[in-house]
């Protein structure tokens, strides 16, 4: 192993969190190196109009995703089962390469509700202990919405998010989300234009008493130059968004918001195709001294650094902590330990509507976060008394792109092949619409991550093992919210309605969502959390762990907005406090 010259900071992973943190640290004058195990990717070189709209290549074969042969997880539903490797991604799709999953995401950019950050104390105070599900490990975040508001703002203005504010400094504005937490100012760009399905949904939901509003979108409605001086271009509604790179510079991503300036910063360099295999520790185990990584030729390198930023995807942050002996591993039999604890996901549901052929939904013309949302049944926006569950879901009518290999809905009972299939496929392709829900997922004692005893990656290291299932709380929540979606679809005019509330067991095959959370959770107590409110490891103060791995449980929204806010919150704590007194905890245990 060869030893490289010391850096002020090493960043593991160059996606959203690594790019934002890299920029903030370079601005503070640090010498920073980012190590990214995937390839270099950029708009002009990799996401080209002549190659990008290719469903087979990107949507089905998954060229932008991490290869399972490089790294995967083993999965099971319960602790008494044998976990087996996910051999090809299905339920979730981790990214790979510069930009991470921020390259192929849809762009839904939410703020969590103020009560989401007080998931334990808010519900306890309002409903009493009995409202919590069996075996739950629900915790407060250790940070409040009010504390995070400036950092949500910073991320939204970096990314140019298109939306309609609902609550500016406490004033409820028409057309926005009346339930959202206060915001200092409106979104940087106006909402996207809507399609026929969204127009039907808006009208139907309003008639039924909902207050629908445009989904906040990382597909940008108009040209926008962000505070770093990087310009995004207007979305063309091409229909190739999630799973694809954007060839129009219209989707917020590290490539379209940060990297153009970060890559030119003299304090920054990126090494790609370089996989960090462990974080090195001092002899007393109290400090990280750098990382070891392997390059594409198999050479092993030591990169010493004063500050170690773990900015990989949620799963891989947790795995690297377990490999490196950072934080005490979680033990589900005792409930002790913190690393791997509170893995959670997202409990989504759908109501499908088949309409008569007079409708031309034209779903192939759309954007990843083109949609209308109603938030009446999310979080604690509704009274949970007597409902026997906590949390909720947002209700959305989004454009689903109707890419032809994967999205040709036909009514249940139709044959899967032959002339009858062909006829039904033709008849329903243009006259189908969908209303979905993005549901919360609480944390439980026996939903967790650890290292697999059997299966190894290509370097001989144990794979991460995921033990997860949807529990009664999520099934009851999903059934309740899905029941509220059906009348909307009926009012939209569907002639046949099929409701699919979330039910266990969790299956690794059908795509559900790439919103994996927890495993290195934040909190106010080192006994029950891995990192403090600044994402600093409690017992190793020069290591910060960014991303959705910090969520103590998951809310009824997509995670990226909160991931961005937490990253800016951590970056400011590092540059304004930590660097004045390096190596010290920012919060006393």
């Amino acid at each position, binding site marked *: 192993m060869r030893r490289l010259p010391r850096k002020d900071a090493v960043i593991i992973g160059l996606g959203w969190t690594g790019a934002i943190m890299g920029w903030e640290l370079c601005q503070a004058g640090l010498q920073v190196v980012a190590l990214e195990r995937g*390839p*270099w990717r*950029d708009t*002009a*070189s*990799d996401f*080209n109009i*002549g*190659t990008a*709209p*290719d*469903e*087979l*290549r990107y949507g*089905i*074969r998954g060229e932008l995703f991490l290869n399972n*042969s*490089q790294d*995967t997880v083993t999965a*099971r*539903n319960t602790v008494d089962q044998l976990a*087996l490797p996910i*051999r*090809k991604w299905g339920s979730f799709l981790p990214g790979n390469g510069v930009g991470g999953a921020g390259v192929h995401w849809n762009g839904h950019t939410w703020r969590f509700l103020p009560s989401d950050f007080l998931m334990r104390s808010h519900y306890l105070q309002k409903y009493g202990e009995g409202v919590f599900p069996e075996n739950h490990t629900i915790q407060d975040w250790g940070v409040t919405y009010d504390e995070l508001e400036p950092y949500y703002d910073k991320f939204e203005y970096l990314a140019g998010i298109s939306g309609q504010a609902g609550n500016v400094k406490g004033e409820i504005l028409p057309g926005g989300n009346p339930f959202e937490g206060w915001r200092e100012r409106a979104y940087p760009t106006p909402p996207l234009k*809507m*399609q*026929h399905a969204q127009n039907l949904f808006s009208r139907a939901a309003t008639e039924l008493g909902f207050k629908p509003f445009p989904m906040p979108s990382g597909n940008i409605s108009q040209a926008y130059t962000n505070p770093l001086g990087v310009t995004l271009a207007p979305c*063309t*509604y*091409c229909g190739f968004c999630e799973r694809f790179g954007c*060839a129009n510079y219209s989707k917020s991503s590290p490539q379209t918001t940060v990297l*153009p300036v970060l*890559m030119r910063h003299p304090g920054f*360099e*990126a090494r*790609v*195709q*370089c996989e960090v295999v462990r974080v090195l520790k001092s002899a007393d185990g109290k400090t990280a001294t750098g990382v070891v990584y392997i*390059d*594409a030729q198999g050479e092993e390198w030591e990169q010493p650094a004063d500050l170690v930023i773990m900015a990989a995807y949620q799963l891989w942050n947790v795995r690297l902590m377990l490999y490196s002996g950072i934080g005490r591993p979680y033990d589900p039999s005792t409930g002790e330990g913190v690393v791997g604890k509170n893995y959670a996901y997202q409990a989504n549901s759908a109501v499908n509507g088949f309409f008569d052929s007079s*409708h*031309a939904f*034209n779903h*192939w*013309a*759309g954007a990843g976060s083109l949609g209308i949302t109603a938030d009446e049944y999310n979080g604690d926006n509704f009274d949970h008394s007597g409902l026997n569950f906590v949390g909720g879901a947002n209700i959305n009518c989004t454009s689903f792109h109707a*890419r*032809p290999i994967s999205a*040709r809905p036909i009514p249940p009972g139709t044959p899967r*092949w*032959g002339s009858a299939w*062909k*006829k039904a*496929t*033709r008849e329903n*392709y*243009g006259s189908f619409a969908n209303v979905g829900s993005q549901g919360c997922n609480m944390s439980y004692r026996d939903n967790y991550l650890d290292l697999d005893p*059997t*299966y190894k990656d290509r370097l001989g290291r144990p794979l991460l093992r995921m033990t997860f299932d949807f529990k009664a709380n999520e099934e009851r929540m999903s059934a309740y919210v899905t029941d509220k979606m059906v009348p909307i679809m009926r009012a939209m005019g569907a002639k046949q309605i099929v409701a699919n509330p979330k039910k266990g067991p969790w*299956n690794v095959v059908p795509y559900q969502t790439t919103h994996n959370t927890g495993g290195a959770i934040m909190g106010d107590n080192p006994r029950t959390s891995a990192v403090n409110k600044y994402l600093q490891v409690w017992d190793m103060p020069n290591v910060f762990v960014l991303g959705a791995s910090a969520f103590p449980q998951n809310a009824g929204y997509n995670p990226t907005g909160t991931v961005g806010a937490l990253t800016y919150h951590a970056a400011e704590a590092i540059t304004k406090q930590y660097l004045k007194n390096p190596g010290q905890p920012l919060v006393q245990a």
Partner: protein
Amino acid sequence: MTDARTSRRTLLAATTALIGLSGTASARTVHGLPWTSNEVYPPAEARPGPWLFFTADEAAAVEAIVDRLIPADELGPGGKDAGCAVFIDRQLAGPYGRCEGMYMQGPFPPNPLPTQGFQSSVAFASAYRQGLAALAAHVGRSFGGRKVQQLSGEELDRLLTSMEKRETNTPEFNASGLFDLIHNNTMEGFFADPIYGGNRDMAGWKLLGFPGTRYDYRDVIARPNRRYELPPVSLLGRPDWNRGGRG
């Protein structure tokens, strides 16, 4: 085009690396924005010609099957004329057939949970080879020594139905697994970009009314709920744009 770009394209085309780039690319340190315009390699166009993976008998059986899964009728061409068998052949001859990029390390326990997904040690190309051989044997036994491609449409429909419904499964022949594999790949071929050998003349897209790769629908968004009249476009353009009539 510079030599460096040519060699990168040549290398990538030679490996037909749809996935699995990490094996061929090399580690590097990046300063600034090191892009070369249009560096991304286009997929290699699947061209008509000899079978790359199938034997003549296998190809005839698969062509017969894809033409029942998607029959030619008043709504348009069937799976065979749309090139679905060609698509499957080219896919099986490439990284997909070898399950490149998938996690293929053992052990492979015999009874995975239904929630655990694909758990076979047999890559897709081998699964076709073994499955089609078992199907040929089954058909020979059940249909008086005939081959799949010699069955009538009605007979083949009945066979495929029984395979789909798991009625033909035996310890030696995972008939429903073979059905699902062929069904999945046939649909991929019928609806993927024609550059991969199926969806010939964009027959699949025309069936649906999918306009393809136009990439800018601001005109459509400006006028919701209007029927779209323009014909589809693929990564190869349109047949009438190309002298050779491809696409």
